[in-house]
């Protein structure tokens, strides 16, 4: 994955490449349903472009951004490990 950090307001974009669009979609659908624990001050948007999962955060403060990003990366790592161990996806 690679990162783009905005120097002005706390924003971050992360781009995660997957072996196929289907696998990127699996990751997105596993990671998107749960709401941010914090009600305000943070927004997170997940999207798909081909085989790449993109995540864009906007936050009021850098520390709020950091908490959300760290948590997301932990869960992303777990999802990717799961896909590695139990993949590839079955034929549809």
């Amino acid at each position: 994955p690679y990162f783009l950090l905005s120097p002005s307001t706390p924003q971050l974009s992360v781009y995660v490449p997957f072996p196929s669009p289907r696998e990127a979609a699996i990751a997105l659908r596993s990671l998107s349903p749960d709401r941010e624990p914090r009600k305000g001050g943070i927004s997170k948007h997940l999207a798909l472009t081909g085989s790449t999962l993109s995540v864009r955060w906007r936050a009021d403060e850098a520390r709020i951004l950091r908490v959300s990003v760290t948590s997301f990366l932990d869960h992303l790592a777990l999802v990717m490990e799961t896909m590695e161990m139990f993949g590839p996806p079955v034929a549809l």
Partner: protein
Amino acid sequence: MTVVIGFEGSANKIGIGIIKDGEVLSNPRRTYITPPGQGFMPSDTARHHRAVILTVLKEALEQAGLKPADIDCVAYTKGPGIGAPLVSVAPVARTVAQLWGKPLLGVNHCIGHIEMGRLITQGNNPTVLYVSGRNTQGGLVIAYSERRYRIFGETIDIAVGNCLDRFARVIKISNDPSPGYNIEQMAKKGTQYVELPYTVKGMDVSFSGILSHIEEASHKMLNSGQCAAEDLCFSLQETVFSMLVEITERAMAHCGSQEVLIVGGVGCNMRLQEMMGVMCKERGAKLFATDERFCIDNGAMIAQAGWEMFRAGQVTELEDSWITQRYRTDEVEVTWRD
């Protein structure tokens, strides 16, 4: 033939179990245990679950002798519970459901306990006492009626298990295998009954006042040698369990029920089972309880509730599969019973 795998990790236990038509094929579990005097914190618990969940998943499949293709449905705990661990387990369930091309089912944790209790004990239509450490739901008297598990009585503040666990921290006893188990062992050696507040409020119970009282009393009485920690453990159990027996009996009288089923972690406690047994005998009623494999949070109970829900035609869409810390037992439509 229907095979369901269930993922449970809403508190400090992470368990994954597989059920095939009422048979438990596997049910491995790990518990995150903290040092004496410390409770488990959400993010540490979540980290523990993330570290072991895939190992436990492999064990569940291996011990059942199954391949992913043999599974019909993936069930997981939607809630209630602690946010961080819930949110660490659900993505794994969602991922394997998609990898294996199987439907997903979000299960209510308490209903998992009830359905496992029903399966194991084959009770007809018992009054259920759900007793655990889990807040908002850890002292619940439930009876089934018209497609809902209706709540007849509940704790208005903390769970009974939470009360016991927090007292265990005050007297700094070990959390291994669980604080409640160690309180039970110490209580057996108690010789003195220390009077504590008894707080039943109609159909409901309250434990936070008892906890504050015993926290204060223990500092005074232990320091002055008036009583031993064992006596306090004994007195606390006698008090809170009597309260639970009382509200259970009230619900039984209300429903005309002749059966009691105890589920949840605190249900492992033999003294609670004994006291409930005495009340049941007096009423000519039957008591059902499960052993520590199923009283304590486990994956197979989620699989069992999932089995019932799946066969009744329920499925959870991925977009709707978000976890929730608060999830009342009576919110669920029990479509699998008449």
